[in-house]
């Protein structure tokens, strides 16, 4: 039982408590602030919930990972809930004395160490999984790019009707062009074939001619940022406003090319949505404008 635990999202608490941050609003109900001292400047995020309350069974080994944020740096590095981090960025965590009663010394130490990292820093990690000792490296990410949701807003399962084909219907993906594309992260083997080790492969190009991508293109960068997965690509796109032009760098037949794509305006998106739901014919040229 971990009823007396304190839980901290490593390296995120500083931002979520910062005045004016995207997480500045609190959900309903009493929330007690954490006890860490906020500081200024960007912070790397490693994406784990670590136990900072006393954990007598594991504090002699290291810091107990209660949960790993999906898609975050720790998840990408292979960490799982239940792992015990024994060494972080060169510092041993086993048996670190607790700063106060009912606190976990290793957990608190990990929080302090993680707060010292900047986005893009690489941290070697040693951890225990069961009886196995393992090693990995993680690359911290910029928290501000992740914590865009300003409140906890959990959709009710089934509240969003599926699209034809059984896919979730609630996602926002800029109309037909990006929605209907098929994408996959570039693996090492695929990378050898396509001539790059990074990027996202377009498996099936969009039918929408407003996005001039072809099957076999590799998305190298979107607005100067390098997508590491299809979800990451969509997250980058989501940071643009309607009407903005996005520079997309691709590899086509092993040659680098640059494309420009304009984020549809809201009325364009609405028209695309209505077409999707067969509310207007495909030939419709647009909604009435004011």
């Amino acid at each position, binding site marked *: *039982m*971990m*009823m*007396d635990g*304190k*839980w901290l*999202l490593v390296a*995120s*608490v500083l931002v*979520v408590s910062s005045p004016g941050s995207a997480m500045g609003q609190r*959900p309903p*109900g009493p*929330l*007690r602030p*954490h*006890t860490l001292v906020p500081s200024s400047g960007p912070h790397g995020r490693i*994406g784990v*919930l670590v136990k900072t*309350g006393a954990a007598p069974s594991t504090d002699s080994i290291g810091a107990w990972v209660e*949960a*790993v*944020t*999906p898609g*975050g740096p720790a*998840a990408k590095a292979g960490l*799982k*809930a239940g792992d015990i981090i024994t060494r972080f960025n060169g510092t041993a965590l086993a048996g670190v004395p607790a700063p106060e009663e009912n606190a976990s010394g290793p957990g608190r130490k990990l929080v302090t160490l993680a707060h010292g990292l900047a986005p893009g820093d690489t941290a070697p990690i040693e951890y225990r999984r069961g009886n196995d000792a393992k090693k990995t490296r993680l690359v911290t990410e910029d928290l501000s790019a992740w*914590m865009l949701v300003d*409140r*906890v807003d*959990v*959709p009710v*399962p089934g509240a969003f009707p599926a*699209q034809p084909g059984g*896919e*979730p219907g*609630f*996602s*926002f*993906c800029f109309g037909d062009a*990006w*929605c*209907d*594309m*098929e*994408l*996959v*992260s570039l*693996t090492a*083997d*695929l990378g050898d074939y396509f001539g790059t080790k990074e990027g996202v492969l377009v*498996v099936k190009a*969009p039918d929408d001619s407003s996005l001039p991508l072809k099957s076999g293109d590799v998305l190298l960068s979107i607005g100067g940022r390098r997508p590491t997965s*299809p*979800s*990451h*690509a*969509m*997250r980058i796109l*989501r940071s643009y406003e309607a009407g903005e032009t996005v520079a997309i760098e691709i590899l086509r037949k092993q040659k680098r090319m640059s494309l420009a794509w304009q984020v549809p305006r809201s009325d364009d998106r609405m028209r695309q949505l209505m077409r999707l739901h067969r509310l207007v014919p495909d030939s419709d040229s647009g909604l009435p404008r004011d």
Partner: protein
Amino acid sequence: MGGPGTGGCRAQDLERAKRQSASLEAELQQYDADSRVVTGRAASAAAELEDRIASVDGWLAQINGAPVEPDPQVVKLWQDRVNLMQQLVDVRVTSAAYVGL
């Protein structure tokens, strides 16, 4: 999923939610989403769910646990996390078009 209970019920609810969360995390990692072909729609849905989970984790990071029994809001947040994780599993598992090469 029910709301947070009272007293000992909350502790049980909290432990159950944590176990479910860990189980769903394991399921997601076993699925190896990065090697799967997905549509932009599914990728966007996954990104949105991941961001919401990150948001829940951010809120959990702000709450100190109660010394005797769990804070009801902590229980609720963990249950929200499970809900979102389940939806993320659903999106990942049901939307992949092919297994990657």
